[in-house]
């Protein structure tokens, strides 16, 4: 089924998508509109035929959403499950606070990708901007290109894999050894994302757990 956003009201289209169960939908002429295909809760397939604006596929549960273009700020924000695929680039804070599901960005993601992620898997074909993975709590962020400054600043228990260079690591984020289990996990994520890369070329980053753990030796400072 097709909806043409050049003529149809966005709220009505979103409501129809939210109410549908098990359908296949195309959204024509998105023209950078905001909040496309937001709040979907059922197993639908949605294809957005062009560039999306802010908050596309926000709060997604179960649906598989493809943006056939670029995505504006906050794409797949607070996603719970399902998949969101951006075939172009994504603007800042892609996948912010997302709890689950898979976000694939075939191009590059701008600053703060995966900020405060809480369990989502994010695979980025290109680069990510500065402060990506900031306060990431759980989930996995895979970057096939380079990462900007302060990667994983104040990170909790999320895992970050980067193939290219990292401008700098943020507070409490360190490089960690790649073990077979990590290589297998990474390969699985690349396969799911449909992206090809040699897992041995990646480095793994995570928390040194000094920032968020209480250390009894510091009791006197409280």
């Amino acid at each position, binding site marked *: 089924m097709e909806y043409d956003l050049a003529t149809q009201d966005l709220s009505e289209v979103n409501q129809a998508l939210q109410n549908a169960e098990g359908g296949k939908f195309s959204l024509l002429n998105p*023209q*950078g509109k905001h909040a496309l295909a937001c709040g979907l809760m059922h197993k639908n397939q949605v294809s957005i035929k062009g560039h999306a*604006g802010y908050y596309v596929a926000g709060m997604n549960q179960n649906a598989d959403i493809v943006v056939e273009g670029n995505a*504006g700020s906050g794409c797949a924000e607070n996603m719970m499950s399902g998949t969101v695929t951006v075939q*172009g*680039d994504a*603007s*800042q804070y892609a996948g912010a606070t997302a709890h689950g599901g898979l976000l694939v960005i075939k191009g590059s993601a701008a600053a703060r990708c995966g900020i405060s992620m809480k369990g989502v898997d994010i695979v980025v074909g290109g680069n990510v901007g*500065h402060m990506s993975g900031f306060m990431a709590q759980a989930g996995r962020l895979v970057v096939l290109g380079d990462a900007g400054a302060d990667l994983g600043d104040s990170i909790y228990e999320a895992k970050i894999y980067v193939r290219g260079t990292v401008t700098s690591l943020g507070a409490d984020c360190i490089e960690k050894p790649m073990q077979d289990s990590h290589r297998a996990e990474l390969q699985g994520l690349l396969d799911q994302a449909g992206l090809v890369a040699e897992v041995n070329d990646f480095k793994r980053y995570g928390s040194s757990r000094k920032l968020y753990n209480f250390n009894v030796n510091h009791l006197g400072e409280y």
Partner: protein
Amino acid sequence: MCGIVGLFLKNPKLNKSLGSMTASMLYEMRERGPDSAGFAVYQSSNVPEIKITLLDQSGGVDFSALVTAIEAAFSCAVEARIVHNHAFLRTNADGAEIRRWIIQKHPEITVLSVGHSLEMVKAIGDPKNVMADYDLSGYHGSHAIAHTRMATESAITTAGSHPFSTGSDTCLVHNGSLSNHNNVRTFLQAKGESFQTENDSEVAAGYLAWRMRSGDSLQQAIDCALQDLDGFYTFAIGTREGFAVVRDPIGCKPAIIAETEDWVAMSSEFRAIATLPNVAQAKIWEPEPATIYSWEH
């Protein structure tokens, strides 16, 4: 929040469409700035005269009397076109001197712009009406920048609307807020710059104008601005021959650039660019923080 757009035409065949293309972009940015709007258009720059755009915020200025007074004070001829509360003057006298004279003698008048090719309009109200009232679509030219404002740092006034210009043919639009504008304003006043508002963005315009008057290229001036201006900003900047875009190092404020063989467009959001001809063929990217993107004719 504010909306900004900029359009730089590489193909002069499109010059007749500059106004209508800019208007279609600005129309899409109304939601980001519903309280006021403004635009600056660079028209043909091979005219020898100086253009001066004036704004009467009081509603009581007699522009004809002002023109006579300028003609007497500077022994020159002045041509004037008056549209609502704007006056567009043309003269062969020294524009910077006339600007200084008006600011001193007529504080009720705001000098919006001075230059060989720059004309500027700003007004309170729905951007759609501002564009219609001042016929943005009818403008021809080589490049333009425009702004829709949602006032956060100072009152909704025409003078607080963008663009801002303090130097010849130099102006900017700003999305964001500067935190050290008071200090920079004081510093620039000591260097002889004059300001007409308390607005932070006017300070940024004054800063660039001061650097370029001191011999900097646009690129060098923006390089220094990245060091000296503190706060959140995406700027679109126009000069007589050029157009530039820069975001602060944190990159909070949005920006997107698209380029084809015929034009370069920037905006706060893609939906403004989506209206342009052949956008499907455009190279589209988000400008990196603290990186200067510029084009010149």
